[in-house]
């Protein structure tokens, strides 16, 4: 697991050409995605073999991942390679801009790689074809087994250069992998790259596990487990595999989430049938009670500055979303629309809260401003809930279940994503049925 703590040596060759023309506006749904040509990276013939990596195909494989990332954003339209007009190594030195413009490309990505002495050296360039200029370029060195991450890091740099926003490709998603009949479901913790590659199962399925969430600052995860039939919040270190119960509560703890600095866990604790919100400091182990109300208070989520907590409560009758200061003072209801509201999750940008809404037997994922105004419902379905933000606050991942027949047949649970513009709804590839996704921070930040 050490490979996730790799050192990236970043050398910026040339940054931010001031006269660039192409840019992508991601604040609107993009109906006219930017045509971009991703040339296969040129593989240096001096490259040495390394642990089963197919060197000859490596340049092609990396460019395919970049293309897949770009296509999934809905903002870019990667062009077919058959139409490419120059060999990768020559294009990387100096593209014939007018020829690339003929295939209607506006941007061009070129690059080369070399594996030598157990190291993978990669460099890439992004070209603005209309302005006939290099927009950005980067070279870095890493271990060859990280080649998929190389593709994601290149994708992030290009996305950042073209949109002005941080990317979200070099990230992972932790979720609950589901299998078996609907009334005998087996659930395991699973983790995968954002694009569905490298799936690993972190528990065996012997006990029920729910709601894993990433620590925004480290490779720690908090989740709920029914280990020994005692439903409790756990802390898991993905790198070492060690896990421990969070706190010493005499009853069920659930709905955990980290504070933005990663030092606290906020969660619900159920005592004598009543659920309130608590925090525990992971260093000092000090437990604090945050809410004290005879209603159900759960699904807490910190604001990114750590000053506020959003949660849902049925203190007014049915589930609604409330915001309070992180010490529990100043509780304010923010949802007043028709329907029931749950699972508030604060955007990492701080400007929006994502939520699940239930109305007239339909389920919606939506976003609203942190004071509850400006509600926008992004997607409607038979059953969906539990949004989680991409680290740049532009995309939500959530899970959706289908209606089951009289014997439970036809039931499935899958992960989906949607841009906060309401466009670009997509199903994520998972090896099994899946629920309760949580998106990590950028790994190489």
């Amino acid at each position, binding site marked *: 697991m050490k490979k996730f703590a790799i050192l990236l040596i970043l050398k910026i060759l040339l940054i931010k050409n001031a006269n660039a023309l192409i840019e992508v506006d991601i604040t609107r749904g993009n109906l006219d995605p930017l045509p971009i040509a991703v040339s296969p990276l040129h593989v240096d013939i001096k490259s040495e073999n390394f642990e089963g990596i197919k060197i000859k195909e490596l340049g092609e494989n990396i460019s395919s991942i970049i293309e897949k990332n770009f296509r999934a954003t809905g903002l870019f339209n990667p062009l077919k390679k058959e139409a490419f007009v120059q060999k990768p190594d020559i294009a990387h030195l100096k593209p014939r801009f007018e020829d690339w413009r003929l295939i209607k490309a506006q941007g061009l990505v070129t690059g080369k790689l070399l594996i030598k002495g157990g190291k993978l050296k990669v460099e890439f360039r992004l070209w603005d074809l209309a302005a006939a200029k290099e927009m950005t370029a980067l070279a870095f060195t890493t271990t060859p087994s990280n080649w998929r991450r190389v593709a994601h890091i290149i994708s992030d740099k290009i996305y950042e250069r073209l949109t002005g926003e941080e990317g979200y490709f070099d990230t992972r998603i932790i979720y609950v992998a589901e299998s078996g009949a609907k*009334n005998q479901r087996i659930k395991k913790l699973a983790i995968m790259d954002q694009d569905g590659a490298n799936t690993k199962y972190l528990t065996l399925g012997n006990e029920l596990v*729910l709601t894993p969430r990433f620590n925004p600052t480290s490779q720690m995860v908090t989740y709920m487990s029914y280990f020994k*039939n005692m439903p409790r919040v756990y802390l898991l270190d993905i790198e070492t595999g060690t896990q421990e119960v969070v706190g010493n509560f005499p009853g069920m703890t659930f709905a955990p989430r980290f504070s933005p600095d990663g030092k606290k866990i906020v969660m619900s604790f*159920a005592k004598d049938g*009543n659920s309130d919100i608590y925090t525990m400091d992971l260093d000092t182990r000090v437990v604090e009670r945050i809410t004290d109300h005879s209603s159900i208070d*759960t699904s807490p989520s910190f604001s990114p500055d750590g000053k506020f907590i959003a949660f849902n409560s049925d203190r007014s009758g049915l*589930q609604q979303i409330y915001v309070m200061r992180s010490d529990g003072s100043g509780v304010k209801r923010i949802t007043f629309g028709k329907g029931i509201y749950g699972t508030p999750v604060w955007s990492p940008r701080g400007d929006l809260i994502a939520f699940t809404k239930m109305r007239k037997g339909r389920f919606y994922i939506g976003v609203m401003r942190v004071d509850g105004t400006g509600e926008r419902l992004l997607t409607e379905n038979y*059953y969906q809930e539990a949004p989680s933000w991409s680290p740049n606050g532009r995309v939500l991942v959530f899970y959706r279940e289908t209606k*089951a027949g009289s014997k439970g047949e036809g*039931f499935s649970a899958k992960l989906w994503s949607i841009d906060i513009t309401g466009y670009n709804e997509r199903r994520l590839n998972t090896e099994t049925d899946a629920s309760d996704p949580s998106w990590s921070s950028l790994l190489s930040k």
Partner: protein
Amino acid sequence: MMFNKNLKNILLVVFTTLILSACSTAKKSGNIEGDVYTGKETVKFLASGVPDRIFFATNKSSLTTAARETLRKQATYLRKNKSLNVTIEGHADERGTREYNLALGERRANAAKDYLMTYGISGKRISTISYGKEKPVNPASTPLAWSQNRRSVTVKVN
């Protein structure tokens, strides 16, 4: 006469249709009242005449008259069997968010526990656990299945 006979037949058909439709509506409302399940299909018994489970309305943990009657039978049974301990499992239907349902299941299990305690059963003999929406007894996505899944079940532990 001929006319009369035809009329009789028509009336007979109309009458039978009325009875049939009355039967089918009676069956539906007989199993769910409000939206609380009142049937016996999923019910098991702790002992003869002592049902193991009670049912709840959507998003509610209040005890219906039928639920209280069942719990009083359980209390009587537990008083007679003093060494017996139980766990009450609280459940929710699939039409709510996972985390809220965990809290709701907990509330339902404790509503049953509290009622047993008011009939003299020591709290030390009753543990509770919530499974939220995780363990449906009926996997269908229908109002009937949801009403059967909104339940708390008393389970013997020794």
